[in-house]
């Protein structure tokens, strides 16, 4: 495997960097990105070879930035792609699919993909302490993978996260540090800590490795679609990284002959209470105006200063996609409609994706005759409290058949 991963390269100026724990260019602060010897990958991979690979994200290992065999997260990925016929009917679309990372292993979100790559790389570079800035899902995943692989871990989160996301980190006996303030403040602090301690901060100094893990969601979509690029892919955006990496996977698959080139559109989804990327897109600019105080129930997307916002906008524009955002009420409706039609319970970010897809279809940005994939990135049990006042109450009765009959009688 080792001959495929080439180097790190600044996405802005193209300067090369060694494959170490660095994430920004020393000259213009541009992000560093992993590059590969694609001519070698192209000779090595085939559809058949990938299909007979491990039943996990690691069947795409040649496209991941490691130098040895992976060691962390060997069971992550290859989540189901569901044909969502009932939801398609309601949204008025011909062909709709749900890429269901609500059941990713082990911590029920797409973050298991990125952490698996980052910690495999952290082992290669002999790091013993791992850390992250997180809105919850990443913290859960980092803590679980650290526990299972003997790393010491620290997770830094905004202090006001959903209880399930806090407990979902604490249970792995990680050190959870709640920061008073928004995610962006957590992030800023982590950048300073990463400059001081020799830790593998997965989304700071290990970000070039970490971010590549998201590509596996894109590769899996292609394979599960029968090695075809879907006409439209709708992806929720926090930093915007996932969206750019799914596009990168599509491009790499074309480059290496796994799929045929065709036009496709990538659409971005945000919550109206924290919409720096969609607002800039709609204004026709690529200058992102940060959101100082995000205010949305989609806390996992509440990043006011999105690191990859600029690149997400470039990707959406290049592919002819659109960017949309939805209110908290529309997010709740999105969660409910997905659960009621397809039996998938998504977290608030999934409600954002469904809600935005609905709007994009209504506004004609996604034509009715097309094929659409929705990327559902996290599990509803982690943000269940947002539904508290939005569901039918339960019927409480005495354990008597007569009482039961009274309830169901009128439904006959």
């Amino acid at each position: 495997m080792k001959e495929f991963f080439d180097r790190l390269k600044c996405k802005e100026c193209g300067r090369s960097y060694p494959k170490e724990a660095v994430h920004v260019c020393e000259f213009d602060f541009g992000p560093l990105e992993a590059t590969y010897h694609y001519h070698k990958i192209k000779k090595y991979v085939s559809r058949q070879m990938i299909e007979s690979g491990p039943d996990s994200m690691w069947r795409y290992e040649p496209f991941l930035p490691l130098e040895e065999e992976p060691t962390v997260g060997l069971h992550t990925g290859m989540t189901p792609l569901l044909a969502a016929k009932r939801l398609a009917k309601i949204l008025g679309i011909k062909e709709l699919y749900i890429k269901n990372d609500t059941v990713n292993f082990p911590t029920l979100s797409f973050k298991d993909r990125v952490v698996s790559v980052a910690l495999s790389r952290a082992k290669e570079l002999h790091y013993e302490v791992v850390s992250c800035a997180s809105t919850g899902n990443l913290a859960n995943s980092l803590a679980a993978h650290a526990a299972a692989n003997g790393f010491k871990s620290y997770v830094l989160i905004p202090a006001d996260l959903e209880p399930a996301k806090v407990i979902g980190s604490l249970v792995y006996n990680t050190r959870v540090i709640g920061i008073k303030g928004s995610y962006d403040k957590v992030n800023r602090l982590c950048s300073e800590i990463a400059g001081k301690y020799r830790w593998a901060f997965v989304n700071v100094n290990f970000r070039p490795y970490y971010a590549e893990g998201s590509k596996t969601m894109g590769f899996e979509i292609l394979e599960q679609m029968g090695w075809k690029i879907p006409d439209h892919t709708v992806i929720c955006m926090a930093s915007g990284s996932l969206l750019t990496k799914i596009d990168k996977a599509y491009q790499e698959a074309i480059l290496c002959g796994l799929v045929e080139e065709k036009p496709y559109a990538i659409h971005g989804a945000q919550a109206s209470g924290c919409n720096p990327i969609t607002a800039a897109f709609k204004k026709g600019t690529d200058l992102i105006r940060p959101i100082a105080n995000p205010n949305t129930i989609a806390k996992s997307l509440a990043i006011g200063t999105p690191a990859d916002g600029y690149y997400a906008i470039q990707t959406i524009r290049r592919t002819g996609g659109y960017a949309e955002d939805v209110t908290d009420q529309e997010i709740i409706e999105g969660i409910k409609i997905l659960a009621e039609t397809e039996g998938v319970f998504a977290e608030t970010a999934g409600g954002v994706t469904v809600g935005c897809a609905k709007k994009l279809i209504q506004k004609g940005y996604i034509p009715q005759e097309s094929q659409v994939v929705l990327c559902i990135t996290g599990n509803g049990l982690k943000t269940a409290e947002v539904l508290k006042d939005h569901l039918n109450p339960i019927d409480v009765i005495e354990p008597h058949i007569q009482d039961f009959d009274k309830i169901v009688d009128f439904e006959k």
Partner: protein
Amino acid sequence: MNTMLNEITVRIPTPLRGLTQNKEVVYVSGKTIKELLLNLESQCPGILNRICNEKGEIRRFVNVYLNGEDIRFLNGLDTPLQQRDEVSIVPAIAGG
């Protein structure tokens, strides 16, 4: 200590420490962020180019914070500074 000097604490990120003799923190005077950056340049030649682009604007992937607040939420480069303020220069690419 001459209080007229208006010394501001400036936190330097790892990628720029080659220009500050590896110092994490430098002390610079200035009445606004812009003036502070110009004075920083005379102390650490070459640093301004790395923080600002050719138009003199803060680069896309650099965030500047005054006492923890992004200066884009304040007055940008014209944000006034006071004694004992702390300015942090932080790479924007992180998180998510």
